[in-house]
């Protein structure tokens, strides 16, 4: 069974999803960081496929992506790394990247590679549901990978329902109208509104969540939280070894 599916069947609250840019801080740190995240009890690892022009990302992820690309990261290297990770760790892995990366690799080939190395899900922020449905859904439907689409505080209810129908991983609830890593006041009414919609998919809240308080707040309204920029800053400051210290500061 898909590891994401399995996770959500056994766990419905306090889910912690940690994002790390592949190939950061050093090219081969991806493997050791993900293994350590697994050991530290993280529920999902989201691996960012570094991109030259990450539109939805704030400065922290932009910079980590630039460094990863300078380190020589690319999709072939990443797939080898996931294979290596899978020798030891069973934590669900979700890849996050931009649509152009899939297009150039070849969508079918990309999906097949993901499945064969042990990736469980995908987040492609610049593939909106309308174009997905019109042009690409048939391709994605052939694969067992789970897709997660984003919603934001501005997404209208009928669109959220459609996103819920098209998603089969989780709903990625963007906490604020901002790029990743932006700290803003959270509108709890939005969290509550979505909570009351009774969606099919589990909901994880991300963007701007950086510490225990943010994690706990997310858990009051959703099934869990996604932390990215704060973890990248931690690794950047204290080194790729210092994974557990960050996770222990969160829960």
């Amino acid at each position, binding site marked *: 069974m898909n590891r994401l599916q399995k996770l959500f069947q056994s766990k419905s609250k306090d889910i912690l999803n940690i994002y790390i840019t592949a190939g950061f801080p050093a090219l081969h740190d991806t493997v050791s960081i993900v293994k350590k995240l697994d050991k530290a009890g993280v529920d999902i690892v989201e691996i960012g496929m570094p991109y030259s022009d990450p*539109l939805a990302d704030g400065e922290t992820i932009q910079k980590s992506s630039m460094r990863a690309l300078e380190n020589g990261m690319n999709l072939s290297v990443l797939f080898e790394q996931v294979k290596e990770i899978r020798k030891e760790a069973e934590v669900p892995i979700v890849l996050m990247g931009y*649509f152009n990366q899939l297009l*150039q*690799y070849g969508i079918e080939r990309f999906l097949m590679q993901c499945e064969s190395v042990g990736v469980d899900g995908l987040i492609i*922020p*610049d593939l*909106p549901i309308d174009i997905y449905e019109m042009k690409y859904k048939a391709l994605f439907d052939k694969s067992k990978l789970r897709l997660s*689409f*984003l919603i934001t505080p501005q997404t209208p209810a009928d669109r959220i329902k459609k996103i819920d129908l098209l998603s089969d991983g989780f709903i990625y609830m963007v906490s604020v*109208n901002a790029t990743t890593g932006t700290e803003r006041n959270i509108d709890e009414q939005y969290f509550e509104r979505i909570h009351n919609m009774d969606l099919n998919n589990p909901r994880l809240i991300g963007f701007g969540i950086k510490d225990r308080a943010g994690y706990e707040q997310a858990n009051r309204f959703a099934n869990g939280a996604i932390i990215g920029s704060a973890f990248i800053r931690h690794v950047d400051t204290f080194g790729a070894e210092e994974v557990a210290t960050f996770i222990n500061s969160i829960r």
Partner: protein
Amino acid sequence: MEERVKFTYPENGFYGEFGGAFIPELLQPCVEELQHNYLKIMSEPSFLYAFEGLLKDYVGRPTPLYYAQRMSDYYKSHIYLKREDLCHTGAHKVNNTIGQILMAQRLNKKRIIAETGAGQHGVATATVCALVGLECIVYMGEKDIARQAPNVKRMKMLGAEVRPARSGSKTLKDATNEAIRDWINNPEDTHYIIGSVVGPHPYPDMVTRFQSVISQEMKRQLMEKLGNENPTRIIACVGGGSNAAGAYFHYLEREEVELVSVEAAGLGVHSGKTAATSQIGTKGVIHGSMTLLMQTEDGQIVEPHSISAGLDYPGIGPLHAHLISANRAKVVAIEDDHAVKAAYLLAQKEGIIPALETSHALAALDKIELKPDDINVINLSGRGDKDLETFINFEGHE
């Protein structure tokens, strides 16, 4: 019977296989608001009245279609220049910013953002923001800020804030990324005035329509001068491609009119230092649009090179990708030094200093087989004051 339309308008946001709106969900409300409203607003009589009035009295339209006698003698073929350089602010860019600022007002936006390469679009945006009294923030690559200093000063004098884009190649592509990120962070009160026929649907279509005044005037002016609306060919430079889109628009379905799109070859199409997007580019997504772009095998966007900041862009508008793929437009690539030579030629034959971008279109005259009876219209998209330093310092021209 409905007229057959192959090129002029997108269908569901796509020109053939190019275009669309590949945007993060965060931008969906902003882009959707525009998609739902732009055609409706553009057809309102009060909008048209304001738009046409400002184009006439503020921009100075119609711009002349000038017969360049000494250039025609030199090339032994008829050469007409569509003088967009005579528009207020010195380039065609203002046609679009006038349209978009009126659009922003009707959408009740209070804050305007823009990206700029050469600074012409930044100046044109700062200008219309001053005109209507709206806050203006212009993103500009750090590298471009250095090489287009006069335009930076103009934007500041007009009351705009110029924010340097320090990511990536520090040029137009990165300024566009930063503007899009700003929009993500300020979705409710902000309108993003994109300067070219790039970006997510409806921008390519909306900007093309605002720029289409160029070919609308051309048709009438050619009829007056020659008794025929159709020239043999229209030549325009293409970075993102807004001046070309405007100069082509009313001729897109008239396949007897040749369209020549001139790209910046930089140091050479295959030198690794180029902006000849359609020749070395492949299909992909940039700035929310499926188009041709310069990228690696992994889909990482490649940093382009051109001496001209306005052509230094790794993509091309989806309309142009479609025109080129369908062989409706022919592509010519011009190298840096050739463009500079062409600028000197026009300056000394006609007393007109063209922008570096436009100089590429002029240089294309050397690469096309011109017949004595041909009517060649070159869209003289901008004036060259901003590029004086580059022209003067260029090797071989002291």
